């Protein structure tokens, strides 16, 4: 992956956390992610508690979070992840794009990506995420 660092072009890979209670959904995200950013490291969690533990222990850069999960939903988790690391780009991924869900995603500073996830949508989100992470450096 190409990233601009202080005017120089450098190779940069990131750690991405994928959170979904569905194993199929996690595998589907992995397929798209492998096509878009095959060099990146992927961690998976099946609920909000696991995700928070991983985010703390694995120094996650970016998170993709399902909305409709048992226990705390993806919007709550997105807020918790952003509180833990305010500069972490987070996307809520769901087929449920009701206005209220989109608004809450914006309120917690998360992007919204439609399920099923497409390469184009993920690519756009990750390009934006990389720019934000580069500014953080």
């Amino acid at each position, binding site marked *: 992956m190409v990233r601009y660092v202080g005017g120089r072009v450098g190779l940069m890979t990131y750690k991405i956390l994928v959170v979904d*209670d*569905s*194993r*199929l*959904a996690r*595998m*589907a995200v*992995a*397929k798209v992610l492998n096509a878009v950013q095959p060099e990146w490291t992927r961690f998976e969690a099946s609920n909000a508690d696991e995700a928070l533990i991983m985010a703390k222990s694995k120094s996650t850069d970016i998170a993709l979070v399902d909305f*409709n*999960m*048992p226990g705390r939903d993806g919007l709550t988790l997105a807020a918790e992840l952003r509180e833990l690391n305010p500069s972490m780009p987070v996307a809520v991924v*769901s*087929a*449920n*794009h*009701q*206005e*209220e*869900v989109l608004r809450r995603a914006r309120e917690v500073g998360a992007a919204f990506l439609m*399920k*099923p996830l497409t390469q184009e949508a993920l690519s756009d989100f990750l390009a934006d995420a990389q720019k934000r992470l580069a500014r953080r450096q």
Partner: protein
Amino acid sequence: MNTQGFPVLSAFELDALAELVNYGVSRAAIALREMVREQVHLSVPEVRVVTRAQAVEILHKREDSGLVAVHQTFDGALNGRALLIFPDANSLELVRAVTGGELPLEDVMELEQEALAETGNVILNNCVATIANMLKCTFKMSLPEVLRGEGPEFFNLPPKAGDVVMFLYINFSVRERNIRGYIAMLMDIPSVIALQQLLNQFIERATGVLEPQSDARY
């Protein structure tokens, strides 16, 4: 098939089916949200292969008063029936919500049957069509019918090939208006077997890998 003659789906196939149902019901919730202009909350879907008696019991544990169901058959690669079920006490509130809440009570009561059928039609079509698209097949939907009862009436509707149903269950609610309900689907045994094949094709398309064979089956 297991020893009782029930078609069995692996844990991973059920997971994939639940995710498909999630897509379908999300689309249905968006359509309902447009009609009632309030957020529609969805539960995490539960998908089980159960007998008709078990389906009645599952519903009875959650709802012990009169219920109303809008139901439609679907025919094609799979044959079955989709049902939108909610407490009878909610039905006038649902009609009020979809008609804008400005009609007098007597008009709402007169419109009730028609409005329930139309609302059910929009929700069930959105749900079934989304699932069909993801499975890359087509279904022909019948016209909606409205049925009142306690539960057994809904699960004894055709198709009746064998005493087993695919019970897809998801709870939806419009909290601001105290409306809640369930979406369920009934399928006969040949359709559950056909569904298994379609699911495995879907899994391969979505993940790029075949369904792991070591999974436990339920």
